[in-house]
């Protein structure tokens, strides 16, 4: 039973992720992303990490993908894209791809993956209290850094979206 469920959710996650990259239609891609997230949430539930599963659904499936769809509809980028990247974009993406390959290579060659403890995710991600405790003690610095990054992004949006010369938005 558990194996069957795991296989189903894993397949859903991976197939969804492939669908995001492979789909030309952006709305289809966003829906594939949604499927992938639902599969991931199912995997979390199987690890007894209920809190993580529902937070994932709430934040990513409930809000982030909906925002993606909002942006897709607002910009209306239906199937008009051609492969017309600038040279710089091609160069940087190639470099990034190389780095990814190198990282994967070293990981396969020399990296040691300790046997994953299946209870670890359940222990921390099952209920609110242990999760929050970890968040405010062990992982306080990453949380703060992430918060700061988001703040920077938000300020950037405010600066970019302000019309030049206009102090106050006209109603």
């Amino acid at each position, binding site marked *: 039973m558990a194996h069957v469920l795991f296989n189903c959710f894993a397949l859903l996650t991976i197939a969804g992720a492939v669908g995001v990259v492979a789909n030309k239609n952006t709305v289809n891609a966003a829906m594939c992303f949604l499927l992938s997230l639902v599969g991931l949430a199912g995997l979390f539930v199987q690890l007894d990490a209920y809190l993580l599963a*529902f937070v994932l659904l709430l934040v990513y499936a409930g809000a982030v993908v*909906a925002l993606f769809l909002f942006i897709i509809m607002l910009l209306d980028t239906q199937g008009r894209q051609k492969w017309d990247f600038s040279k710089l974009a091609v160069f940087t993406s190639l470099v990034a791809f190389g780095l990814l390959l190198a990282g994967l290579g070293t990981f396969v060659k020399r990296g040691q993956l300790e046997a994953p403890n299946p209870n670890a995710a359940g222990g921390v991600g099952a*209920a609110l209290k242990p999760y929050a405790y970890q968040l405010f003690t062990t992982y306080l610095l990453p949380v703060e850094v992430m918060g700061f990054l988001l703040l920077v992004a938000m300020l950037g949006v405010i600066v970019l979206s302000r019309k030049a010369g206009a102090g106050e938005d006209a109603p």
Partner: protein
Amino acid sequence: MLDLWNNLHPLVQGLIKGLAVILVIFPLAGASSLAERKVSAWMQGRPGPNRAMVPWIAWIPFLSTFLRRLGLFHLLADGGKLLFKEEPLPGHVNKLYFILAPVIAMMPAFTTVTVVPFGAYLTGSGEMVPLMLANVDVGLLAVFAVSSLGVYSLILAGWASNSKYPFLGGVRASAQLISYELSMTLSVVPVFLWINAPGTAGTMSLARVVEFQSQPGFWGGTWFVFLMPVSAFIFLVSLFAETNRQPFDMAESEADLVGGFHTEFGAFKWSLFFVAEYSHMLVGSGVFILLFLGGWNPLPWVSLADLIGGLHRLTHAAAVVHPLFVGVLSIVIFLVKVLAMIFFFMWIRWTIPRFRYDQVMKLGWQRLLPLAIGNLVFYALAIAFLQKPV
């Protein structure tokens, strides 16, 4: 009876529970739609639906007139009409998402019902056991997470219709529902800060919230609507926005968008959107009642246990303290409250005119969100001051 239930295969149990949800919520949502028509009519001083009648009952002299005027059989007539109508599928739509959208609308609405406790019975030692289909510790978080998926039905319906007004409705829905989710989530945090006193195991369970509101004594029996009125207000306003009800029905907005996201839909697909909307209202009202209006406790400062105790002292009947009676009584009390909330939804509909879209956004981001944050900070400080650390 209980043994028989426990011996069933988990899949069969799940299937029965799922069917039970559909069998309860679907007619209830349909009845709400009829009630909406009738209540709207009364509020506008017109008779409302009063024609449909079943032949055999029509022969009973006075009852038939009463039932006809009440319009009860319009529920059957509407349901039958919508089921047997031709299903139009416009040529210009994206077929997959067009058919999928009403289905997606139903799924979150029905799934959230499983984690909402709807009643309780008392064991011999006076301990309260909540009645719910799936007892998960993350309780409210599960409701929020799953119900937030409801936005996809509106977005997809609007987008797949491939025409102007549904598209606008879908875009509005996606922005509006996300905006109000923030205030809604923030508004309930004080409740959970208060019930998760230091030294207790942290929980997000809705049943625990009700348990907290049914303690003896003045402060124990105070419903959270009195203790945290601002939280309750923010939650209620966000609930209206999240369920797409007037004055927030931007996605539908007949005045400027024809029918909004469902303009191109007809027959049963169209009615599925409405069943989903009413299911969302039912679940949302249920959650509001559990959080702020004492759940299945009959009155503020009078808990279910008090009521049962009082009844027992009056009648001395053993049947009164039987778990079955207590369970049914609690469900009835809860249901009455939910229906009162549904009436409140309709009452607001004919009281406050629809907002403009920019007003909705302004209210969400510039009024409710700061209010919710301020409210949270205030209660966090107050609770830290009141609840001594162990």
